[in-house]
């Protein structure tokens, strides 16, 4: 079964599907209609430092199999969640879908659950929504279901600014899709995810996704219509994104091509690795490392990581020896400094906004989000300020203006987070954790992280020491943080302990 399909597919050496498909009797054909059991509306779990906390996905998965995709680390990944395979067995479909009627109810403020109610004030204040947060909204599943064709007119009807995250270079060139945006193009911002200038390299990494040149064609058509677009240059992969044989300045060439296609911002982030990948994920990493020309990248990465050492076990799985609860294995600021500054300088020279979604160098952002929106933008300038990216950007501005500003939790406390349970935003993993946290809100967890500087997601650790705790506010009992500038030597002192 596996060998047969492997020959038909030919995209990898068999390692990708090995764990996932095993001996299952699969039906690869998509059902006429996806089961309508998916809940595609949620607050993003990254909302602690994300300017767009409302995320919408119409399907439970994605047709593209990108080797670095962070959704492989989440419960929607089939090899992390047995329910996905159960759905396949019972309904003949890997994927389920959010009922389009619920989208209209949500936009019309008719949904009455706590999540929707907490979102309405954000919508009322003009906060854009993410469309395509965990999967591509214009992939081949969309082509099969036509969900977005019904959704785009609804977004226009209810005047909701939409930031689309996509790689769908071919589907978005189709006239029937381009036509959808004609009535209000400026209401849509397309963040095109492109990590390599080379079509040959990208098709080995973004398996099944359209190549770079197709994405740029779609970007050009959309910006000609009046839509806004940006380059989502993440994850930045050495050997693929920066340079490759024959193109020593590939990153710069790509940015120039995006500029010609109408992009006006970049959102940058250096690669991070999951410290505990599944077998399938580790196989995808191996494929990625091979394409990067660095088959031992996981070991090299250990040298530049902030904490711990990467090791490889007998099965060839990479893991971090002492990461504790760190979920993203990132390089040190020092290792990323040069290329980050080059990308920033290039973006500014093109007249773009610079956004960095990597927690390191977020303080360099042109504005308090990592999408690259302008504060003056009529549609996209109303992002939520109540998050840590805004805090660190404002803290840096105040410091550089000679008036250092102190922040405590209440200064950025996002109200919505105190109205939803933590389990609505984060998969709690096991029942015991669920039981411990069942009466806490997501806001309680945010506040706890704010007040626990050695937590990997505390402002101190997360930003690599740029926000430092300077005392306790007697009025609220919460920690007070201040911005401190960084220099290359600081990494030696920053042990995160």
């Amino acid at each position, binding site marked *: 079964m596996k060998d047969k399909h492997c020959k038909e597919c030919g995209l990898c050496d068999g390692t990708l599907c090995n764990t996932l498909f095993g001996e299952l009797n699969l039906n690869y054909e998509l059902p006429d209609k996806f089961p309508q059991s998916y809940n595609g509306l949620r607050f993003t779990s990254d909302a602690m430092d994300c300017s767009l906390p409302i995320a919408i996905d119409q399907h439970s998965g994605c047709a593209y199999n990108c080797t670095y995709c962070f959704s492989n680390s989440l419960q929607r990944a089939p090899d992390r969640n047995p329910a996905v395979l159960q759905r396949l067995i019972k309904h003949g479909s890997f994927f389920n879908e959010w009922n389009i009627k619920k989208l209209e109810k949500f936009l019309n403020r008719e949904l009455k659950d*706590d999540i929707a*109610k*907490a979102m309405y*004030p*954000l919508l*009322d*204040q003009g*906060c854009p929504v993410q469309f395509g947060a965990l999967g591509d909204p214009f992939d081949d599943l969309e082509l099969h279901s036509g969900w977005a064709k019904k959704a785009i007119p609804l977004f226009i009807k209810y005047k909701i600014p939409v930031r689309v995250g996509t790689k769908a270079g071919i589907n978005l060139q189709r006239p029937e899709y381009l036509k959808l945006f004609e009535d209000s193009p400026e209401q849509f911002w397309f963040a095109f995810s492109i990590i390599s200038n080379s079509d040959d390299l990208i098709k080995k990494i973004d398996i099944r996704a359209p190549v770079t040149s197709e994405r740029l064609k779609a970007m050009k058509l959309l910006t000609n219509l009046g839509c806004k677009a940006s380059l989502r240059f993440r994850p930045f992969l050495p050997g693929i994104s920066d340079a490759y044989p024959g193109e020593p300045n590939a990153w710069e060439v790509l940015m120039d091509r995006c500029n010609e296609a109408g992009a006006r911002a970049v959102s940058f982030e250096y690669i991070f690795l999951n410290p505990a990948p599944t077998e399938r994920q580790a196989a995808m990493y191996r494929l990625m490392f091979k394409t990067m020309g660095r088959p031992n990248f996981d070991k090299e990465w250990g040298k530049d990581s902030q904490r711990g050492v990467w090791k490889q076990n007998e099965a060839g799985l990479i893991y971090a020896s002492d990461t504790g609860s760190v979920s993203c294995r990132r390089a040190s600021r020092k290792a990323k400094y040069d290329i980050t500054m080059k990308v920033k300088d290039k973006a500014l020279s093109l007249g773009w906004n610079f956004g960095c979604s990597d927690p390191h160098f977020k303080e360099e952002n042109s504005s308090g989000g990592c999408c690259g929106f302008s504060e003056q933008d009529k549609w996209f300038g*109303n992002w*939520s*300020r*109540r998050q840590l990216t*805004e*805090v660190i950007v*404002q803290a840096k501005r105040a410091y550089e203006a000679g008036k250092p*500003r*102190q*922040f*405590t939790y*209440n*200064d*950025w*406390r*996002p*109200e*919505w987070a*105190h*109205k*939803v*349970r933590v389990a609505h935003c984060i998969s709690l993993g096991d029942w*015991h954790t669920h*039981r*411990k*946290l069942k*009466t*806490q*809100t997501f806001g*309680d*967890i945010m*506040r*706890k992280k704010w*007040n*626990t*500087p*050695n937590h990997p997601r505390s402002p*101190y650790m997360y930003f690599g020491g740029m926000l*430092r*705790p*300077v*005392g*306790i*506010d*007697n*009025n*609220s*009992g*919460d*920690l*007070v943080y201040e911005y401190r500038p960084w220099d290359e030597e600081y990494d030696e002192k920053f042990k995160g*302990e």
Partner: protein
Amino acid sequence: MDKQCQKKGSDKKKRVPKVKITSILENMTQPLLFREEDPPPNYHSLDDFPKDVKKMDYGIFSFPDIKVGKLRYGERKFVVFYFDNEEDYQKVVNKLGITIGKTREHPNMDTKKLLGLIDER
């Protein structure tokens, strides 16, 4: 017979403490739920509340009086037992005086009593 059945059924319905469970859940979740009377939140800007900053004269990672969220569940140690036999489970539950059968947990269990039982041995 029919009447008896109906009566039994109605009694059974009365015995199920639906109202009580609902009220317990409401009490547990009330602080978390959306309230219509809440003022509209501000998402357009950061605040700058007045601060009374107490400088720390100890290491930045040791905060004996730090507030870590509204509730401190994570700070309490707990032990979970699994029982193969229902009888053993009932025996332990009765001995410890755990009266909440639904959730099978006792957030306010008398730790002193438990320790006393262990010390007796």
